[in-house]
């Protein structure tokens, strides 16, 4: 089957649109639909998700007919490290505090670059951490701890 796909971008876009549309349509069924005179909470979402599914089907069909350019290689290293760094930051920022969470975020994400260098990144982490504590905590009053509850207890 994959051999017949002439446009992988159309193919996957179609799949995503159909899946998301399907999900929204399914969940909408739990809400009252109402009528056009008195629209219920499910009315507009049902309309939209059906439309999205139709667009998905058209895109999917088109992927077998109209040739297109292939999807370029994914930057998995960047994708993985950048998102992991961000999520990890969220997980530890209150517990460990900024002195640990910020350098973790900076070094982990910097590692995504193929031109990564330890010394340089450590210096960046130190500089940015001090800058952020001064600007965001002291200056703008963002309620984040410098040392988190895990350290102070």
């Amino acid at each position, binding site marked *: 089957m994959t051999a017949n796909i002439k446009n992988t971008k159309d193919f996957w876009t179609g799949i995503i649109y159909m899946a998301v549309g399907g999900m929204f349509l399914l969940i909408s069924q739990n809400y009252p639909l109402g009528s056009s005179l008195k629209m219920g909470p499910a009315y507009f979402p049902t309309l*939209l998700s059906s439309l999205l599914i139709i667009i998905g089907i058209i895109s999917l069909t088109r992927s077998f007919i109209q040739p297109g350019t292939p999807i370029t290689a994914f930057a998995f290293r960047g994708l993985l490290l950048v998102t992991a760094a961000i999520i990890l930051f*969220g997980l530890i920022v209150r517990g460990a505090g900024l002195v640990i969470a910020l350098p973790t975020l900076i070094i982990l994400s910097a590692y995504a670059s193929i031109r990564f260098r330890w010394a340089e990144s450590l210096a960046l982490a130190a500089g940015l951490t001090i800058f952020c504590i001064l600007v965001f905590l002291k200056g703008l009053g963002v309620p984040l701890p410098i040392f988190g509850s895990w350290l102070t207890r």
Partner: protein
Amino acid sequence: MELLANLSLGFDTALTWANLLYCLIGVFLGTLIGVLPGLGPTATIAMLLPITFTLPPVSALIMLAGIYYGSQYGGSTTSILVNLPGEAASVVTTLDGYQMARRGRAGVALATAAIGSFFAGTVATLLLALFAPPLAEMALKFGAADYFSLMVLGLIAAVVLAQGSLLHAVGMVVLGLLLGLVGTDVNSGLQRFTFGIPELADGIGFVVVAMGMFGLGEIIRNLENERLRSEIVTKITSLMPTREDWKRMIMPILRGTAIGSSLGILPGSGSILGSFAAYSIEKKISKNSAEFGKGAIEGVAAPESANNAGAQTSFIPLLTLGIPSNPVMALMVGAMIIQGIQPGPAVITQQPALFWGIIVSMWIGNFFLVILNLPLIGMWVRIIMVPYRLLFPAILVFCAIGVFSLKNAEFDIYFMAIFGILGYIFTKLDCEPAPMLLAFILGPLMEEYLRRALLLSRGDPMVFLQRPISATLLGLAVLALLLACIPALYKKREEAFREES
């Protein structure tokens, strides 16, 4: 005379020391973030939005307007110096701007952009002051059905202007509308699509979506072709355009301003269409058309003026109708709502100080842009030259803390990460995120107006065709879509964008 009275009210509001300072800081920060390669106005505003939350409404909006112009000018600087446009609108500037820089005329190109932007900004601000009040009065005649159709037109325009497949762009709009509905339904109080997560009761934050899709997504995309990225050092020698340069840039600036201002009003377009049209027209009618693409000063002057004029006049639909015409304006709506202002025709009459204050501050912002940027060009150049491997972790830090500070919740950080992944995947699939963000903001509004329109018409959907305003707007939307669908034109559109990128 009324105009003068209104403008003086505006000057009274904007010309307090505090507001001048906020405007200056906004322009400075906007340029600072905007010059960073790959970060356009949308990402810049999303990142800097949280710092305005604590300010009073007038100051916050003045600062945001400053950030907007600053980031646009910063984007032009990056386009000219390193050929890396941050957003579609400044793509055209790279064509001749970068060539001028390679010929050692980077300083003149930057000065031309600043002069053109300032002139265009001044004219467009005056237009805004002249036309916004009558338009707002007209907007009072708009019924629910008309509003709904206007939003349809705006979304269709965003689709037509999006790069890549038309079908995918329509899908992105529908997806954006759906995501906009997540949260508590205003009418029934029912929580929709929240999966029982209490943090989603207020809906997904639009800043979270914007930062994820435009900030994170863009960073991941930039990490892709790191090997190809060249770091060229450009020397700025002379800023002053020669007599010949002045002569050559006057007409393009005038034409660019006219084109940009008129196209900027259209919903869904903003400054992209204007800068592109101005460049094409200039290329056709210029005496020096052979020089275009090789560093013609007209090729910088015209699109830069159009760009800035459009940025200004795209405030018209926002301030008069309350309808954002592009993602940047969508962020402005968000900011206004956070400040407790419901954008729409009532703002002019109920909060004249705010309205005129913003208009005047637009001009002041443009003025600061010139006096700040010309002397500081050396500094911006040094920032551009900071290697990307040091830059992007810093951007991530600002995104993470910025998003956290919206509601002081880690939850938003996770959601930003999810939208970062989504944004990256969608760009890989040629689905542009810009129309999605616009639809995301309009989703709940559209549902509400649809509900009201159908309620008033007793459930008859024909109301959208029976009301003259609504029918005209829908007709325009269909026309725009048809034009984009006609194969010959469609091909041209593809070519046009290929030429840009």
